[in-house]
């Protein structure tokens, strides 16, 4: 299997503290990989190691199937990144900020206009970044990360500190990128809702350890649903459901339907109505992804 990013047993210690422990991250081409974990979980530390900003204490990093230690510059040519709070030169204009990076990257000047267009900052291109809102600075940071038309884009909490409209704006921006260019994206967040709406794959990290790594669909599977029925004479009603071959549980006077396709639920209701029970409530119980995430990251064990 070809991975764009593959870390093996990646660890980072700060003195006695371990910020990242034995992390095996695998990202396939074209994925939007959501790197999820509460604050202090080790997301930024991992990303800093991927970009060669920090040296790993142990373990290896392969990007584009090349060893980061050996081919750092060749790898970084094909990577764009935004780490933590956006970096910028406040005394320069948006255009000049990008120009300072462009000179180093050696891409044509027209690319500056293109990326400004993508993040919709064309109109303020010649204004000093000092006066920009956080959202604009964040967008400038994304523009900077896109300058070299990267094959791998790494964004560390790109919506952190933004207001809801800013968040939606950045989210839409990120979602459209891979479709247009076949880019692979690694995006970190401490909010599941963020990742849920963008990612195709998730890696969940807590206390420096990867505790889950799979497709977003598999994660959703854990959010099992149950349909609850509140009816008259519930124990009787439950038995008659079982008698009609419908799988159900009975708990504290409530019937739980374990099969919850529309057809099955309709059949159960029909049966009960037909046999003369009164139906007071039909409810759906849902374990949200948020619950699962919370459970995973606080209990520190895989589901």
């Amino acid at each position, binding site marked *: 299997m070809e991975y764009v990013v593959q870390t093996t047993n990646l660890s980072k210690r700060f003195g006695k503290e371990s910020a990242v422990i034995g992390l095996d991250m695998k990202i396939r081409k074209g994925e939007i990989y959501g790197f999820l974990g509460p604050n202090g979980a080790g997301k930024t530390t991992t990303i800093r190691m991927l970009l*060669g900003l920090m040296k790993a204490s142990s373990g290896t990093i392969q990007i584009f199937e090349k060893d980061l230690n050996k081919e750092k510059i060749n790898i970084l040519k094909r990577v764009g990144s935004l780490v933590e709070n956006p970096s*910028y030169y406040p005394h320069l204009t948006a255009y000049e900020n990008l120009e300072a990076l462009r000179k180093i990257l050696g891409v044509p000047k027209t690319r500056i206009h293109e990326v400004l267009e993508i993040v919709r900052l064309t109109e303020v291109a010649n204004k000093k970044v000092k006066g920009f809102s956080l959202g604009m600075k964040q967008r400038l940071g994304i523009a*900077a990360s896109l300058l070299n038309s990267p094959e791998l884009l790494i964004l560390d909490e790109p919506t952190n500190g933004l207001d809801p409209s800013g968040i939606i704006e950045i989210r839409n921006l990120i979602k459209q990128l891979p479709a247009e260019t076949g880019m692979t994206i690694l995006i970190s967040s401490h909010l599941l809702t963020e990742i849920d709406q963008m990612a195709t794959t998730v890696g969940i990290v807590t206390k420096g350890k990867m505790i889950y790594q799979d497709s977003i669909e598999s994660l959703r599977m854990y959010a099992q649903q149950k349909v609850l029925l509140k009816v008259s004479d519930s124990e009787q009603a439950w038995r008659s459901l079982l008698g009609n071959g419908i799988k159900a549980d009975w708990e504290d006077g409530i019937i739980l339907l374990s099969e919850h396709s529309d057809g099955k639920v309709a059949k159960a209701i029909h049966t009960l109505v037909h046999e003369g029970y009164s139906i007071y409530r039909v409810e759906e119980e849902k374990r949200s992804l948020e619950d699962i995430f919370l459970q995973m990251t606080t209990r520190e064990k895989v589901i």
Partner: protein
Amino acid sequence: MIGKLLRADFLKIKRKGLWFLSFLGPFGVIALQMVNYGVRKDYLLNQSDDDWGYFLEYVHSFTPLALVLGIAILTSFMASIENETNAWKQLISLPVSKMSVYLSKFMVLGSLLFVSSLLLGVFSLGYGILLNLGDQIPYLELLKYSFYPYLAALPILALQLWIASVSQNQGIPITTGVLGVIFAYSAFILPDWMIWKWPSLMNEWDEPLINVMLGIGVGTLLYIVGMLDFTRRDVK
């Protein structure tokens, strides 16, 4: 690679006043002599047969101080450009080596100080001619007084750049900078081995060239140590 970084770094110092400071330093040194000679020109011209030499000595009495102060300010400003929004991480995640990033910073500072030294020579020459110090213009002496202190100050530049680029707390390079200025001011009483004495061109053998050679040698050494330390560290 270094050419690209230099062009980017020169763009980044735009509007930061670094060019202006590079002009202000030598201008200030000459301005002091404008006051000095303005007030007591006749007296000063009577003090010596070698009016040019005497004038250059006076100019040089303030050069080391201006230079050491200038180095402290320029390195702080230079580091602040990357420190302000922690742009080091953005810069170093570009396809560049950390060594070349560091070299570029050093070269920009070196160029600014070179321009200052050049301006010092030009201003000295200009004001000397204005003062009518004589037709025998000592070009060689002029060059020495302009560039010897610069070369002798390279270790201070290398040291300040090192401290400014690796310190989390920018109070540290400012403190060492201020200490340096105080040392440079007290050059008379400092032992010969103190790098802050070197720009004064004084030593017990009375041979300025020793300070220049030491400056280049120790400057290179401190530069290499600083660069290796910068490369070794995790980026802020």
